[in-house]
């Protein structure tokens, strides 16, 4: 027993040493499975951001602002915890002033694993941030980067440099510069909005008094497919991020709803009812039907693509229980092939979203427990599932972040809804919206690396 413990300890320390050189090994370690909940996080000491030239009041305020953005990014990356938890003494903070070197022996007693030193510099309207991260185990610099941008996009500049470091260590797409689309209600109207992943920089995206819902990001981040009643009937539209024009994609008689773009950006899964019943279809980017996927007398909705660009998960109430359950089917499979049911627990399972990580079979979804909705994950291969949220509020409509670790979702309390996100492993909620009106239907956009 003791020996096993020792071997494990040895292995962990070996692992914490080797991931620096092999991002793949570490990312395998954080692979989301049904049973795994808590991961060990790297203890990162984030020293103050020092201005290169001066220490005027403006710079001190700016330094604090930059620090707060970076601290949030690391604390919510899923890979780091800011260390130590208590405030560092002045003599420790001042170690940050020597940007190029680290006195490794000084930090031994703190139990930290990495120390990040940062500088910033302002020239005219431009801000440059430099970051250097020292690894205690190897006593070497493991990350060094400089990012510049206009002062007006300070948050984005900080998110970029933190994101670059998180990607280097995790081997996964960073979320720090990603955006989340969501729906906010004003009176009877519902419109789409966009915000940064940390809830900042909210902008309105659609502007009419109809109902605009179910956003689905193009994989390159250049536009959003969604459903709108702007022309009376529920049709599917595309709006590019930096354009005013909206384009009708599918306007067939009946329901045109729940657009879900494939990860390769080539096709859209959706529900159409022009044949007389709501069924899952795959259409091209111009609305032409490529394939009818379901042939049931029941209701099919909310399709989501597996990373293989072929397998779909969706909701159907064909089970005979009269209640919705989640099914999977390869959209190219024959019409006679029945979808395979993957949820068997609970009598109301809906809103599936398939993990974006290549090869993953993990689907996040909503399950009804009494009167409350809860977020669950299920393995599409085995049917094993786990309830993730356990609060007295209703959590629903989850959407994976590009890192395959975080999800955004709607939390409803006393009939008021806001958007939150969480790390699926610890389910600690982070509130993102603070609107006067209800927010719902969030869709997490791609990593900024893909939008460049």
């Amino acid at each position, binding site marked *: 027993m003791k020996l096993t413990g020792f071997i494990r300890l040895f292995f962990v320390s070996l692992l914490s040493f080797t991931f620096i050189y092999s991002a793949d090994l570490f990312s395998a370690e954080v692979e989301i499975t049904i049973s795994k909940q808590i991961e060990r996080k790297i203890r990162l000491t984030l020293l103050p951001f020092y201005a290169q030239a001066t220490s005027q009041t403006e710079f001190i305020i700016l330094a604090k602002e930059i620090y707060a953005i970076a601290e949030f990014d690391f604390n919510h990356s899923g890979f780091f915890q800011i260390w130590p938890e208590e405030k560092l003494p002045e003599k420790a903070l001042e170690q940050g002033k020597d940007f190029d070197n680290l006195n490794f022996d000084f930090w031994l007693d703190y139990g930290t694993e990495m120390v990040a030193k940062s500088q910033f510099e302002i020239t005219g309207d431009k801000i440059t941030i430099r970051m250097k991260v020292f690894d205690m185990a190897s006593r070497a610099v493991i990350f060094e980067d400089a990012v510049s941008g206009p002062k007006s996009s300070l948050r984005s500049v900080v998110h970029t440099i933190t994101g670059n470091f998180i990607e280097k260590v995790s081997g996964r797409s960073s979320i720090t510069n990603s955006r989340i689309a969501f729906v906010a209600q004003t009176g009877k109207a519902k419109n789409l909005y966009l915000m940064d992943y940390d809830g900042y920089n909210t902008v309105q995206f659609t502007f009419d008094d109809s109902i605009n819902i179910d956003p689905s990001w193009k994989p390159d981040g250049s536009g959003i497919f969604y459903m709108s009643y702007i022309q009376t009937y529920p049709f599917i539209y595309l709006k590019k991020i930096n354009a005013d024009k909206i384009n009708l994609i599918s306007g067939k*008689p009946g329901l045109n709803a*729940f657009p879900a773009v494939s990860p390769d950006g080539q096709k859209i899964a959706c529900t159409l009812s022009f044949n*007389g019943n709501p069924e899952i279809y795959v259409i091209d980017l111009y609305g032409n039907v490529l394939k009818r996927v379901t042939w049931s007398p029941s*209701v099919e909705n909310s399709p989501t693509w597996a990373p293989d660009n072929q397998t779909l998960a969706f909701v159907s109430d064909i089970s005979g229980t009269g209640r919705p359950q989640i099914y999977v089917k390869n959209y190219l499979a024959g*019409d006679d092939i029945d979808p395979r049911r993957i949820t068997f627990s609970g009598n109301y399972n*809906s809103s599936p979203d398939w993990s974006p990580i290549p090869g993953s079979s993990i689907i996040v979804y909503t399950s009804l427990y009494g009167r409350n909705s809860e977020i669950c994950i299920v393995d599409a291969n085995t049917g094993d599932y786990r309830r993730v949220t356990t609060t007295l509020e209703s959590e629903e409509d989850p959407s994976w972040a590009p890192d395959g670790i975080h999800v955004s979702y709607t939390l409803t309390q006393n009939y008021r809804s806001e958007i939150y996100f969480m790390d699926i492993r610890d389910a600690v909620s982070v509130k993102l919206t603070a609107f006067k009106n209800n927010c719902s239907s969030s869709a997490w956009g791609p990593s900024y690396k893909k939008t460049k």
Partner: protein
Amino acid sequence: MNLKKQLLNFAVLGLAITMLAGCQMGQKKVKGDIPLTVIPSGQFVSPPEEYKHIFKNIYFDYDKSDIRGDMEAQLVQIAEWLKTNAQVLLKVEGNCDERGSDEYNLALGERRSLSVRKFLVEQGVDSARITTVSYGEERPANPGHDEAAWAENRRCEFKLAQ
């Protein structure tokens, strides 16, 4: 009697051949679905006052889209009216109560509209005259959060156009 039987046999054989042909083409036919072919261009409005007693809302059970027995007489009346006013187009608006997911309810509302449409078509109304729209749980008739409100919200409403 004998002739009837023969006809029935013939019909069964015909059906079997059709199904076989369907299978050979690798396509399943879903029984009873009546395709929507066009979106009518007319301006749909609430039924005029004198016909409101005919176009009363049709209500549904929780999570169900089939026509309740106590709603059939109302629908028969609507079908008769539509048959004698052949120039009028009908829009069936499906709605749900707030329970369950927004997305599922949007699809369920559409299915409720389609159930009403199918019933009317089976009564002899031309399917091309009836269009559907689902509002899911977006347009509750009663904003309450109890069984009485939910029952009022699980409904199809009617709009008419010339």
